[in-house]
């Protein structure tokens, strides 16, 4: 079924305005109001918490045409990449080793 372009432009306009509001929220207001101490102390955990929550399901499961399932090849490759990230703190190397490990494991397991 083809997308109705009238609906599409409505979705685009409202999603754009809403997404901008979500992005602007704290960047705009944090100068204007004083945050409770507990909130400012929580801020430093945001990178570790949010990025880990993105990474873990994405490397343990694989979503393909057939649906989402546990993927041991990705999990293994991610473990190797995590060790590289820990030891070297080098992003290009982490990405290269992780992709190479995934391709190698897929090749060997095929």
């Amino acid at each position, binding site marked *: 079924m083809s997308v109705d372009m009238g*609906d599409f432009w409505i979705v685009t306009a409202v999603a754009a305005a809403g997404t901008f509001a979500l*992005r602007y929220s704290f*960047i705009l207001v944090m100068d204007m109001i004083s945050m409770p101490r507990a909130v400012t102390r929580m801020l430093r955990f945001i*990178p*570790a*918490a949010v990025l880990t929550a*993105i990474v873990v399901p994405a*490397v343990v499961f694989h979503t393909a045409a057939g649906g989402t399932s546990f993927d041991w090849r990705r999990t293994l490759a991610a473990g190797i990449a995590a060790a590289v990230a820990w030891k070297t703190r080098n*992003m290009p190397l982490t*990405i290269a080793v992780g992709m190479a490990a995934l391709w190698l494991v897929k090749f060997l397991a095929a």
Partner: protein
Amino acid sequence: MLTRFDSMTAGARAVAPILLGVAPFAMIYGAVAVAAGVTKAGTMGMSLAVFAGAAQLAAVGLLAKGAPAAVAIFTALVINLRMVMYSASLAPHFSGLSPLEKAPLAYLLTDQAYALSIARFCADGPPVNKPWFYFGAGIALWAVWQCCVAAGAFLGAAIPASWELDFAIPLTFMALVVPAIRDRACGAAALAAGLAALAGRVLPYNLGLVLAAVCGIGAGYLFEQRSGRHVR
């Protein structure tokens, strides 16, 4: 401290290693939207206006299945809820700017621009002009994203799915998050968030991500409170 211009170019250069994951994702959105019957102008229009890949893909997918516009909007916004946390995390680094100066920075906020910037702001090394570093990274990602969406819309997704280049995206974030885990409280935050994300995967609208992030932040905070009392 680096000058504005040097900070901006440092931000733009920091983007280079993560393009392997970003470029195919943008092409996929472009190709999927056109294949679903969206015009090329619409495909580019949404990408310019919303500028959030996962939300764009979800909205187009729902509309293609005949879902009402309200459902597509709701889903896109729930997927983007994590932006509020990024906004809170970055806000102290942008304090003192005028609301007008903050607006373009907010528009450019993405997972990648956030992760690259916060990693740099918290790392050792020559201090940068923070808003300009972030702007350099954000505008470089924006330009690459829009060009690759156009490429996907006109050429189709040229990269076979069997290469699994989508795996480069979590690898990027992994490379950024590992150095950010600097103490045991951060480790507790990451561990709790990772476990909660696995458990929350079954929730709809990507809500598991937000829930897991809240669990992680709470765990880190409580860990720090408890260990703080022990020290005293």
